[in-house]
């Protein structure tokens, strides 16, 4: 009985996984044998065993680097979220900070950190950067989701902002925090490995780079498998501990991230105020950058200030950087388009055919928790060292968040609306076209928006490691050649590119939603809040037209 249920639930997934392994085995063993592209799973396992000492020496380094960054980045995110929630005016700067951190491509950051920090610190900082934003958003979302009734009770008993935060909101935020902590484990590993790519002497990143340049296929696939296993193990351990700490509510659905991002434009402040805030934040970042060099006694040979960067870019050699923009834009754009197209199409497919979704989704999840970085050598082996590889990496990095959020959006049609469509004998296609797609559109577009910086990261990673052109490559060559002004300039341009990409998408998103008439409805959380307020205040919002006139007769009759 229960065996049958397990088979029904996991049978498809297991079958699919076996099939994939079998195909890899056939390809690696016979079809593409010796071509140095695909390693047969059995060979990977053999190699893992043979190289166990190597892994034993390198895995702990990477784990330590990742864990440090993971812990500090998440702690910072939770603290910042708490401050943003309790001190109203800090909210917008906090979200802007998070967004900036999220948009800075790791490829731009890695060399910059390498020249300013030492040891494994760059990897830890990168890991911290990668985990900060998701956890910030999920914590804020959790804090906001506190039951309005419980909040009112707390307030009625005289609890101030701080006590409300600790007694009610912090509890409500736990599911979000657990999701953030678990979801960011793979990202922390990516950060650590990326940090090890340049300058480190040991770690999985070093192994991966060596294996890649030495064309050791078994080793490349082995490192990929080990990293994925570590990411998944970390993910499940954190979830398990989270459930022990917080048994009464399950972790938040990770797909809530994209919808939570609407936090950034939910306030009613005027456009002017928002522009001023944004400019002030940019000014602050520039000021900190400028001041940090003398304050921390950084060498102005390796650390350039904003003035140097601007001078370089407008000067004669600036075109070396500016000419690469188009290439990176094309790489990231290609991957972005493919990634969101695949994510959207699969999302629709999995919602229309839930059985397919149940079978494929766990595999898509495993693929998504493979730290993006290990795809680079594999994809390069498969697709060569051209733009195609860069696009493929960018697509792999973007598709999963888009897929999950699309499914989340398409499924958010209310039960009664679905009943209505069924009672009217609506076809699958009609339900999809007239109900699910419009309802899911905000989540689908939000997912595309948050995928933009990821696409830039994926593309530049591939440029750096594989294609040998574009901003990603330029940054690393500048680093290797000690051309630090060029390195800083390229990093700044790349960051701006990523932020502009994100901003353009959010404008497109708002225009599309307004055109479709989907935007503007208050979120259900807000609505619930208004209802509670209205009830407490003894007033009910009603259109004037609705004032009861005839209804009085009913009362008179009784």
């Amino acid at each position: 009985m229960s065996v049958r249920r397990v088979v029904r639930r996991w049978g498809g997934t297991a079958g699919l996984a076996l099939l994939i392994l079998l195909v890899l085995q056939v390809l690696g063993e016979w079809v593409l044998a010796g071509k140095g592209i695909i390693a047969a799973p059995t060979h990977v396992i053999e190699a893992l065993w043979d190289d166990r000492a190597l892994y034993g020496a390198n895995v702990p380094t990477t784990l330590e680097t990742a864990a440090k960054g993971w812990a500090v980045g998440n702690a910072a995110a939770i603290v910042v979220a708490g401050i943003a929630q309790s001190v109203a005016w800090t909210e917008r700067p906090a979200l802007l900070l998070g967004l900036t951190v999220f948009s800075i491509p790791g490829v731009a950051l890695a060399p910059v950190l390498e020249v300013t920090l030492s040891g494994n610190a760059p990897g830890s900082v990168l890991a911290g950067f990668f985990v900060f934003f998701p956890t910030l958003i999920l914590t804020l979302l959790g804090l906001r989701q506190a039951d309005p009734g419980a909040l009112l009770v707390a307030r009625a008993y005289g609890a101030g902002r701080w006590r409300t935060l600790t007694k009610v909101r912090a509890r409500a935020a736990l599911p979000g925090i657990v999701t953030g902590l678990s979801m960011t484990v793979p990202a922390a590993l990516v950060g650590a490995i990326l940090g090890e790519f340049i300058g480190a002497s040991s770690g999985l990143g070093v192994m991966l780079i060596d294996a890649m340049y030495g064309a050791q296929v078994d080793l490349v696939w082995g490192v990929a498998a080990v990293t994925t296993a570590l990411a998944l193990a970390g993910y499940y351990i954190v979830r398990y501990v989270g459930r022990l700490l917080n048994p009464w509510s399950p972790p938040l659905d990770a797909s809530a991230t994209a919808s939570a991002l609407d936090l950034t434009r939910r306030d009613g402040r005027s456009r002017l105020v928002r522009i001023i805030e944004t400019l002030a934040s940019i000014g602050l970042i520039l000021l900190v950058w400028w001041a940090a060099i003398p304050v921390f006694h950084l060498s102005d040979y390796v650390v350039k200030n904003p003035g140097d960067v601007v001078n370089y870019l407008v000067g004669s050699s600036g075109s070396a950087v500016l000419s690469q923009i188009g290439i990176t834009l094309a790489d990231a754009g290609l991957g972005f388009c493919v990634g969101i197209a695949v994510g959207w199409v699969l999302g629709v497919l999995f919602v229309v055919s839930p059985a397919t979704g149940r079978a494929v989704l766990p595999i898509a999840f495993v693929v998504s928790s493979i730290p993006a970085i290990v795809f680079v050598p594999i994809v390069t082996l498969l697709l060569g060292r051209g733009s195609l590889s860069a696009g493929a990496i960018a697509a792999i990095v973007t598709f999963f968040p888009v897929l999950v959020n699309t499914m989340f959006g398409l499924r958010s049609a209310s039960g009664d609306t679905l009943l209505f469509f069924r009672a009217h004998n609506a076809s699958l296609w009609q339900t999809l076209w007239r109900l699910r797609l419009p309802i899911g559109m905000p989540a689908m577009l939000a997912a595309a928006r948050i995928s933009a910086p990821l696409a830039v990261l994926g593309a530049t990673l591939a440029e750096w490691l594989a294609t040998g052109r574009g901003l990603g490559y330029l940054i690393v060559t500048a680093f290797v050649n000690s051309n630090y002004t060029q390195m800083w300039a390229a990093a700044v341009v790349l960051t701006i590119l990523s932020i502009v990409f994100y901003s353009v998408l959010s404008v497109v998103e708002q225009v599309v939603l307004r055109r479709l008439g989907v935007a503007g409805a208050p979120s259900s959380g807000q609505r619930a809040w208004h209802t509670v307020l209205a009830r407490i205040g003894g007033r009910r919002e009603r259109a004037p037209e609705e004032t009861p006139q005839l209804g009085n007769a009913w009362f008179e009759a009784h």
Partner: protein
Amino acid sequence: MNLAADMDHPTAGGVVIQGLQKSYRVGGRSFEALQEISLTVASRSFTSLVGPSGCGKSTLLRILCDLEAFDGGRVEIDGCPPHLLRQRHAIGLALQDPALLPWRTVRRNISLPLELARERVSSAVVDELIALVELEHFADARPAQLSGGMRQRVAIARALISNPQLLLLDEPFGALDEMTRQRLNLELLRIWTERPTTTVLVTHSMQEAVFLADQVVVMSGRPGTILAVRSVDLPRPRTVSVLRSPEFHAICDELLEKLFSGGTRAQPVEETVG
């Protein structure tokens, strides 16, 4: 009056339910939600369904519009099984949640069933319905700009657009405040008088049930059975003055007594048909 007309022609159609049986599996055990339900609803008559929460009213309605399979018995609407009716787009449905599409205007929400039936949408027909529910000034508004009561009126107009053979209303005003409900009941009565349609209404208010209906069905729960079926012979067209009549109160009191004496299974007070 409609009821009387149909009693002369018992084969004219309407809803016939005989020995309907429905059980759910909950936690591996079978649980009988509806047991031996037999009921007749005359064509173009109005039937109200009252009963304690969880007694299976919504389940019965879902069976009538083929959203739920049943385990035994017979269900026919105008001589057809529910699934044929559904395939012919001949069912109108309004639920407690108006379930409007927020991105569509009132007009486009109302015409949705015609689109789903791949029928031509005639704006004259839509306008007529908008006028019927008195939303002329809001034809191009979106649901977010309407009050709860107005949204519910849109839902009712939408349920009527395809000229359904069977109109199913599951607590359509359940989420509204008392006064709005009463006002909408009067409107529903007016709309129904203008377009008599075979209607089954689920409600929690006995006054509402009696005031609107030709026949009131009182159910009891666990398992869901029919306690009483009472025909309401108050004259139509009914106005608010009916609410003051002693006959009205007598019927309400009689049925409320049945409802509260529930639990023990009583014989139907009076069989309307047959």
